[in-house]
């Protein structure tokens, strides 16, 4: 079931982690952009009964999967020796995602 051995590089595993953080940040950015710009909200209204939530989630999932594929390809043989910077990047992206999806924060961007 597990395809790794002792010599496997850590790059592909970090690619999955960083891509997930990018996908979450993308979703959060779309939440704030839809609040700030009615045009963005209308453009993301892929399925009318669900409103712009359908577009925000679809676009974020596509961005996440594309980011994962690209990072995996670029880091497939890379062994990341000092992942501290990547860890900080992911934690910052995830904190920003949680903050940007909090109603009191995205409400600041809301157009009347």
């Amino acid at each position, binding site marked *: *079931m*597990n*395809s*790794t*051995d*002792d010599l*496997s590089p*850590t790059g*592909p*595993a*970090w690619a*999955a*982690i960083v*891509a*997930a953080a990018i*996908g*979450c940040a993308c*979703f*959060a950015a779309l*939440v704030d952009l839809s609040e700030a710009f009615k045009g963005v909200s209308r453009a993301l209204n892929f*399925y009318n*009964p*669900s*409103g712009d*939530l*359908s577009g*925000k*989630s679809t676009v*974020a*999932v596509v961005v*996440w999967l594309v980011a*994962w594929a690209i990072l995996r390809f670029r880091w497939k043989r890379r062994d990341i020796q000092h*992942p*501290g910077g*990547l*860890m900080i990047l*992911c*934690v910052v992206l*995830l904190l920003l*995602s*949680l903050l940007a*999806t*909090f*109603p*009191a924060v*995205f409400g600041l961007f809301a157009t009347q």
Partner: protein
Amino acid sequence: MEMGHREFLTALHGMMFGTVFLLLFSGGVIAILNLGTVGLAPDSARRQLRRIGLAGWVAVIFVWATVLLGTYWVYPWYRAKPPAGAALAGYPKYLLVSNPKTAEWHEFGMEWKEHIAWLAPILITAAAAIVTFHGQLLVRHANLRRAVLVLFATAFFCAAVAGAFGALIDKAAPVR
């Protein structure tokens, strides 16, 4: 004891799919923490990784089912606009915002729930993929193990917020 199909799917969305995910989470975190045990035998590590991977993919299936069912079935019922003069009881969003005392359930609770829930499937899928395809690295690299725990913990927080508000909002204005 009757339950309409909307009530059944809403219960399935929150109580069954959501709860299974939250239950699997706690076991997963403990098992990942155990991977860092000094002197863990390779066979034991492989067995644990198999179990975490299996539980992880079950969680992935349940959390995707929860958000997709929620976004494309339950949420449209919740936010449906009532025709002029209709009773608001069948239109939960409009029922909540019609009263200043309950409006915050929608404006804060539902707005937070519907968005934060979507972070959970992305995070838990990445965590399950790492356990399954790069599991041995988790045994050897504490940094990687910590990063996967961050994904798990954030996914749990998102699912817990969404689940709690879902239950409370459905109590204040049930989807029927």
